[in-house]
């Protein structure tokens, strides 16, 4: 079943075409990776999917409903949650309070929200840090807070923007595990933009590759990794060498 469908999305910023005529479909329960070199238009596309940008042309459908013109909080109400590439924790609030903000999306009761938040914190492995101020957490901690916060809204579709970027290998492993659990155990559909190949290759059912605002390839990780156009455009000199080595 198709959960998210983007039709011919185009976005231009003052003459500059950031995304040109890109269509994307995401099936329920799937984990889709979105990759491409910097400036390829991934983030712009991502922001249109999550409602932060309104596309210049094209539409976005969620469960068949046109959400192109909806406000961000309205898409959230429908069951779409996201994280941010540059983390945006509520710095002056505790970790628990951060996640409770998310949990309040489904309840008005503080106790219920708190229980839900604690459950999610346990799930992402932050239970012991629940009373820390969010701003005092490491980058990895902050990324997990964002994940937990988004999860607490009980989304059907989760959009992850470079969720493992900047993490060290062991942290990356931990987060990959969490994402896998979210997708497989909680049955949440996930679209993730990612730079870290290790993560995207390990997780994705399907990968969409973008370059210069266009979709240049789509397929399983293996298919994409062996696509010469992708290697040429995305991996560049250094990476191709190392791929060979």
């Amino acid at each position, binding site marked *: 079943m198709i959960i998210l469908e983007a039709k011919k999305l185009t976005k231009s910023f003052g003459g500059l075409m950031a995304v040109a005529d890109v269509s994307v479909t995401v099936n329920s329960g799937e984990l889709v990776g979105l990759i491409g070199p910097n400036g390829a238009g991934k983030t712009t596309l991502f922001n249109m999917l*999550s409602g*932060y940008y309104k596309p210049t042309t094209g539409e976005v459908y969620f469960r068949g409903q046109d959400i192109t013109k909806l*406000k*961000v*909080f309205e898409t*959230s*109400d429908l069951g779409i*949650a*996201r994280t*941010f590439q540059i983390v*945006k*924790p*509520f*710095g*002056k*609030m*505790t970790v628990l*309070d*951060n996640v*409770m*903000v*998310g949990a*309040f*999306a489904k*309840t*008005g009761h*503080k106790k219920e*929200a708190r229980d839900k938040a604690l459950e999610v914190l346990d799930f992402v492995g932050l239970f012991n840090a629940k*009373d820390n101020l969010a701003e005092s957490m490491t980058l990895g901690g902050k990324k997990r807070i*964002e994940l937990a*916060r*988004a999860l*607490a*809204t009980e989304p059907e579709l989760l959009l992850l923007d470079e969720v493992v970027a900047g993490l060290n290998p062991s942290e990356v492993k931990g987060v990959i595990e969490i994402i896998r659990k979210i997708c497989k155990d909680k049955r949440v559909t996930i679209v993730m933009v990612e730079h870290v190949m290790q993560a995207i290759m390990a997780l994705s059912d399907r990968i969409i590759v973008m370059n210069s605002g266009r979709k240049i390839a789509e397929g399983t990780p293996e298919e994409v990794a062996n696509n010469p156009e992708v290697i040429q455009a995305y991996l560049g000199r250094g990476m191709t060498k190392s791929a060979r080595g």
Partner: protein
Amino acid sequence: MLRRLRYPSYFLPFLFLLILGLLPFIINNEYILQVFIMFLFNAYLASGWNIISGFAGQLSLGHAAFVGIGAYTSTILFVQWGISPWIGMIFGGVIAAIFGWLIGYPVFKLRGPYYALATIAYGEIIRIFIQNTKAVGPIELKGAEGILIPFKGSSPALFQFETKAAYYYVALAMFLLVLLLSYKIKNSKMGYYLSAIGNDQDAAESLGVNTSKMKLTASAISAFVMALGGTFYAQFLLYINPQGVLSGDFSTEIAVIGIIGGEGTVFGPVLGSLILTPLSELTRIYLGGRFAGVHLLAYGLILMAVVTHIPHGVIGTFSKLYHRILLKLGDPVVSAKTGAGKTL
């Protein structure tokens, strides 16, 4: 519950409340009572301000406008149509809330210092308007002359009392109500949402927070609270004028109390008033009549010293201190908790 009163963390606040409640019986000095009324009143106003400026992080420097709207509404209703200020108070609150909503609608698009400057501007517009308008249709604003409220002797139904103690209890009740309101908001979905907005609006939106609606609601509630304070002001002084109740200095004063105490906390504004009200009174009493300006000079210096040495409101320092006292008293409830800030 009663058994728990053995614990200092329960009986200290209770004791504090008891003292406040019995104060007029303990202190038989109307001047001191007056200072306490000013303390409660300032704490009340700063708490109202705190709902939008502290909880949601939108620094307002024009909140006297709402106090003024409340004061003018109930006073005009009373003076011109004989409607009891108790009823006028609610009207004033509602009108101020509508105003808060209407003003907020465009102004909330602004961020940071621009928002603060806009609040100064609307405060000034309202003051200048009332100061220079004698009447709007049948409503007599009386311009700069202000409106005198006839004193009808002791008539509680008309919000008029002979004794200071009565005003004290009204102020105390309002103070407790606004604390309760603050506490309720802070610990509700709304409080969490406002806090989230104050931290990061984009992130809040992504979690389903309708930020503009939240801010408008907070603005309306805040304005409502301020307006009730305005009615109290009017009935307490029995005279209102735009230079008094609508002045920019008054707005700044309210904000200063809130910031010094600690923005965004329930008890911060109370603490701010607890420090600044007596400070302002004491400096004025001891220095006011001697050399012109010395008292405000001292007040300004102390303000600067506090900002320089105690960042982000005295509430943080105070709660640590309070926590330590509780520990000294051997409180079993507190020692179990870790975050000192949590007790407030």
